[in-house]
């Protein structure tokens, strides 16, 4: 194959200066647009769920509530996120390495497979033939088309993973870059490796479940199902984590010219994810029968909290690299000048930094605490759970994806962002809503309110349980916060779709964005930081996080110690 480098296949983006391979850009766009469409659908079902769990509103009847909750899980957790991740993978492999994409036709094949699978699963759910929640635990059965839809979607995603890897091979062969792959691409590769593990686990359990649903297999063991299903279900959330962390590094470099504080540390942290993150699947089985404590402890702690260690490292190094870059460029006064003078009105920045904070303080702290073998007893399957994973998946992943969209619109889609003032407040609305949503659900869950539940008041039940008024208040705050998120989500979709359809086209000879001076080459500020620390401000933030985690960890142990002794 000849090296295709002429203008027919490549364009140099006028504003960012990056080189886009046109077939890769087309694929990236298609996947990103599909992602946003499914975010709209998934978000709409999320709105219905929120309006039903809001005690004073209680919108939907029970059957429609469970249907909407199933659709919300499938669309918002799987389809939106995986489509966007495929877009990120194609972008990283082709644009960041300056390479052509491997086998673009297969890319389109994968895209349509994913579309067909996603539509199939949605149609079956909307017909009411698969109101089984995203987890579809047997012996509860869904229509075979539901499992088949998920399998077809996953096959498409698997092909996309191999195209990503193929593109890495092409780039290396054709020497489009020198030395090691960039850190951001290394992160994307980590996500890809985990994605392959995830999809293979999914195949191992969904294929037999499909055969069972059509009557070819007589029995699916429910415990085995849970272990294998969560090897997919939990790991798929780890793909999100790795992808949005890669985007944090990317945005830090785009906006501040930042480079990793240490290539070695950041890459080893990614490597720890590959080695240990998948063990976390057991977080879902800590109070299941038939598993030993030794097995649970080893797995739930990712061997020895080695994946937690990795996340804590990224949590420091991303803002740390921003701090170092800002200080090198002259914002070197005191502890926080670099932070105060960050571009808070730029949604690419604000969305990214909020993603980092929400992922750490809500998703991360709760995740560490509730995955303790014994503490899980007081948390398992309460609304604390959705409180936690909306912190990781919505606060962390979705918000990071929203933030990068504001950069992709002018570069990948070559359109000017419309309604800029709305876009500037969007991350604050969405992130602020998420914070209230997550914290209130953590509270309600600590009081024991169950998840996936239509009526916490148990109206008309002779054995009804009386919740304290605080539980109702917290659920109300939860859903009011959800409405704030919905407003943020609607603005995101309006701005994105509006810009792509009606935004001013950016001509090929447009004036480039002023280049962010590369932090390393700016002279005159060789000595940065305070007291021998290059990033002292970030270190203070890290200590605040650490204190929060330690305090909250012991509060939960203290609470656990008050419940009935049990062995």
């Amino acid at each position, binding site marked *: 194959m000849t090296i295709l480098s002429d203008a027919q296949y490549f364009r140099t983006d006028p504003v960012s200066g990056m080189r886009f391979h046109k077939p890769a850009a087309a694929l990236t766009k298609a996947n990103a647009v599909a992602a946003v469409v499914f975010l709209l659908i998934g978000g709409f079902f999320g709105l219905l769920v929120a309006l039903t769990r809001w005690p004073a509103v209680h919108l939907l009847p029970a059957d429609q509530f469970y249907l909407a909750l199933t659709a919300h899980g499938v669309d918002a957790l799987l389809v939106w996120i995986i489509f966007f991740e495929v877009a990120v993978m194609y972008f990283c492999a082709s644009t960041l390495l300056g390479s052509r994409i491997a086998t673009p036709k297969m890319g389109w094949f994968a895209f349509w497979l994913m579309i067909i699978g996603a539509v199939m699963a949605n149609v079956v759910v909307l017909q009411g033939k698969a109101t089984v929640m995203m987890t579809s635990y047997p012996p509860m059965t869904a229509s075979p088309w539901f499992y088949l839809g998920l399998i077809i979607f996953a096959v498409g995603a698997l092909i996309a993973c191999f195209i990503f890897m193929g593109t890495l091979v092409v780039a290396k062969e054709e020497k489009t870059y020198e030395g090691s792959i960039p850190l951001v691409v290394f992160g994307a590769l980590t996500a890809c490796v985990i994605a392959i593990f995830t999809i293979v686990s999914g195949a191992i359990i969904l294929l037999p479940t499909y055969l069972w649903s059509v009557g070819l297999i007589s029995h699916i063991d429910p415990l085995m199902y849970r272990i294998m299903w969560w090897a997919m279900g939990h790991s798929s959330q780890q793909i999100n984590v790795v992808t949005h962390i890669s985007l944090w590094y990317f945005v830090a470099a785009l906006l501040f010219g930042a480079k990793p504080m240490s290539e070695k540390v950041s890459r080893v942290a990614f490597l720890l994810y590959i080695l240990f993150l998948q063990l976390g699947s057991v977080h879902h089985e800590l109070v299941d029968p038939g598993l030993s404590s030794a097995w649970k402890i080893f797995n739930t702690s990712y061997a020895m*909290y080695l994946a937690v260690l990795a996340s804590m490292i990224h949590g420091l190094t991303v803002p740390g690299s921003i701090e170092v870059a800002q200080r090198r460029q002259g914002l070197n006064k005191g502890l926080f000048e670099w932070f105060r003078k960050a571009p808070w009105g730029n949604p690419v920045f604000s969305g990214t930094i909020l993603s980092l904070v929400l992922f750490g303080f809500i998703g991360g702290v709760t995740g560490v605490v509730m995955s303790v073998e014994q503490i899980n007893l007081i948390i398992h399957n309460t609304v604390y759970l959705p409180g936690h994973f909306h912190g990781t998946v919505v606060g962390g992943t979705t918000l990071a994806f929203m933030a990068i969209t504001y950069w992709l619109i002018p570069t990948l889609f070559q359109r000017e962002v419309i309604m800029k003032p709305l876009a500037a407040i969007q991350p604050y609305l969405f992130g602020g809503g998420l914070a209230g949503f997550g914290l209130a659900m953590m509270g309600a869950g600590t009081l024991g309110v169950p998840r996936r539940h239509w009526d916490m008041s*148990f109206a008309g039940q002779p054995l009804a349980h009386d919740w304290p008024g605080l539980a109702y208040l917290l659920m109300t705050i939860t859903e009011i916060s959800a409405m704030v998120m919905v407003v943020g989500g609607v603005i995101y979709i309006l701005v994105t779709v509006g810009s792509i359809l009606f935004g001013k086209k950016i001509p090929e000879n447009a004036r480039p964005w002023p280049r962010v001076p590369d932090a390393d080459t700016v002279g005159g500020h060789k000595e940065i930081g305070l007291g021998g620390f290059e990033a002292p401000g970030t*270190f203070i933030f890290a200590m605040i996080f650490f204190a929060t985690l330690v305090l909250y960890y012991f509060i939960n142990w203290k609470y656990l110690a008050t419940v009935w002794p049990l062995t």
Partner: protein
Amino acid sequence: MPTSYTPPSERLWWNEPIERTEILWIVIAFAWCLFMFYYMIAWHWTGKQNLANEAYKITPEAYGKKVQAMVEQYTVRKETEQNIPVVRPPAGSDVYLAGSLWQWRPLLELEKGKSYRLHVSSLDWMHGFSLQPENINLQVLPGYEMVITVTPNKTGTNTVMCNEYCGIGHHTMLGKIYVK
């Protein structure tokens, strides 16, 4: 122009020294990780809330019979219009609780400060045992009989609810454990 999205400037990037902020944070974080790991193990000796992980494979029919035998032996009264049996088993004995679409049966009456071997299983689909307001939560699978030894330490009425989605009547799946 070395940044996070371009190849590292130093080809031998793994030989570069690590900056002090990072080193210190890694040491603190790793020490905390080790602490959490060993604390979880230590709680098996120092704490009173641990799962024994005692479990048996059993068919739903066989489990249903065990529940029925206990109900026949120890029922002390019936409650509600549906005449749901309330069982008061002797302290220290084996107590059988069954989840099914959509109820937790029988209702139980236990004594504060006494220990019971509580068996929990499902007669059909997956369920979630959620004891409130005590807040003890267990996953309940058909075909698996889980045994935990509980010692109620407060008197009062606890509701057993289901917190694993089990179909259209999931939110009506209730039971009670009274502690006298």
